[in-house]
């Protein structure tokens, strides 16, 4: 009987943890867990357990605003996540604020919620500069790399079907791995978010060897991910980000990470603010990717 009660209590505890609102959890524990990426365009590590990037800067400012709102101190814990485990870790409460580079789409909105879009990504093709490839149609019979657990895999499949271009796909386990496939010649092209391509090229041994070419394969709103059905926390995060959009602080952060030399190699990504991102800042929203495709 005792065992039954214990199990019941455990189950109750688990479901209670899910229902608990994040603001209260942060206030009570004095910590917030930020989901960060090892090698992604908006969030990456520079070693020694330090994580930096456009989205990390935004998240740290959001946490600063949360400190003001909740009073008291909030420590930030950095939890590395991958494209494959970020959603389960957010849902199960391990991560409170996922600051990687996650596409907001309808399928994911069933499990998680997104703050207002902070960056609009364009999926592009990276190739070796001397390959002569300049469009997706030239990839017929070629090998194309992309990363497991990303939306680009599906984008690629859709394009393949729509255009009748037939290519062999290889899947890197993360972006650095996919880029290595391109670098080592195992793949002729790497299809991924433009910022991730630009970042991997900028930090490669010879950035001049690579270039980003071709049409925009898909437009994806990238946002900070949070747990679903937690209106209080979403409002707090959204308001903080909206204030940054209005004050021009977000534009400064963008400039810092995309136009200026960044660690660890002090190279420039050089990706000017796109019209789509500018539009998302002017009209803050958390519309999923599917709404962008309709336009």
């Amino acid at each position, binding site marked *: 009987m005792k065992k039954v009660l214990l199990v019941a209590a455990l189950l109750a505890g688990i479901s209670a943890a899910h229902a608990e609102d994040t603001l209260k959890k942060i206030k009570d524990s004095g910590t917030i867990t930020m989901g960060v990426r090892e090698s992604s365009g908006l969030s990456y590590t520079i070693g020694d357990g330090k994580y930096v990037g456009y989205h990390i800067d935004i998240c740290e400012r959001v946490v600063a605003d949360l400190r003001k709102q909740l009073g008291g101190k909030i420590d930030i814990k950095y939890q590395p996540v991958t*494209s*494959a485990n970020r*959603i*389960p870790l957010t849902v199960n409460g391990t991560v409170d604020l996922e600051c990687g580079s996650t596409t907001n789409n309808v*399928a*994911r909105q*069933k*499990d998680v919620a997104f703050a207002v879009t902070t960056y609009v990504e364009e999926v592009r093709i990276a190739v070796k500069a001397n390959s002569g490839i300049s469009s997706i149609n030239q990839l017929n019979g070629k090998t194309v*790399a992309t990363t*497991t*657990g*990303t*939306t680009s*895999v*599906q984008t690629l*499949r*859709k394009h*393949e*079907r729509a255009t009748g271009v*037939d290519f062999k796909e*290889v*899947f*890197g*386990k993360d972006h650095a*791995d996919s880029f*290595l*496939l391109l670098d*080592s*010649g*195992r793949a002729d092209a790497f299809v991924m978010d433009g910022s991730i391509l630009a970042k991997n090229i900028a930090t490669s041994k010879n950035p001049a060897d690579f270039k980003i070419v071709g049409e925009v394969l898909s437009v994806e709103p990238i946002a900070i991910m949070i747990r679903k059905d937690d209106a209080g926390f979403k409002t707090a995060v959204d308001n903080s980000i909206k204030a940054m959009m209005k004050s021009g602080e977000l534009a400064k952060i963008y400039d810092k990470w995309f136009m200026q030399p960044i660690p660890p190699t002090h190279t420039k990504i050089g990706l000017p603010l796109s019209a789509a991102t500018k539009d998302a800042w002017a009209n803050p929203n958390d519309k999923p990717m599917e709404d962008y495709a309709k336009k």
Partner: protein
Amino acid sequence: MSWDWQFYCNDTATGEAVAGCFGPGGKEQTYLQWMLNAWGWTLYVSVLALLLALVVGSLVGIARTAPNKWLARFGEAWTELFRNIPLLVQVFLWYHVLPAFIPVLKTVPSSVLVVLALGFFTSARIGEQVKAGIRTLPTGQRYAGLAMGMTLPQTYRFVLLPMAFRIVIPPLTSESMNIVKNSAVAFAVSIPELAQFAQQASEETSHFEEIFIPVTLLYFVSAFAVNRVAKFVEARVRIPGQSGGK
């Protein structure tokens, strides 16, 4: 929570339901077909790696018990090399590092490289077990064989190995089951096997439970099938009165 298994019949590109749950094949496939293909890759990598591991592992195990000093040292070196490097690192070495030194490897499909990596890794472990099996036998058996006028290879073939292999069937069984489970590392070098399917498909559909439960079962079924085959072999080759016999 609510279950939704409908998506298994959806096309992987358009996301639309396909009548009969099976598309025309090739790249026009449903999630169900994708999962079965992925299972096929898991079995393909596992079975080939297992065959390689059994052959190489037996040779290494024999070499380690051979009276020839150099042969024994080679076996020793082989075992220590392949069992002291993590499997995932070995897979990357085969895929990314060795091709830089041996350009021919660049043209070798990644599935072959994974089979080599997984096979050699397991061969070190199997070699260790075969060696242990041979060492278990009283040294008198080896001398008896030689005293009967058999050559050393004949002593191995007709006296030592038939006994040693029967003794090591149980540890070899778990090694063979391990290879099925270890084959999941193949996803790291772009083999579209079950672990890769699980990661990618759950990302696309957001049906994590509905994807990981069948994938778990498929791994279990595959490993358990290996177990049953090995038990069958064990029962068939058993010699009454000998160790392991009844």
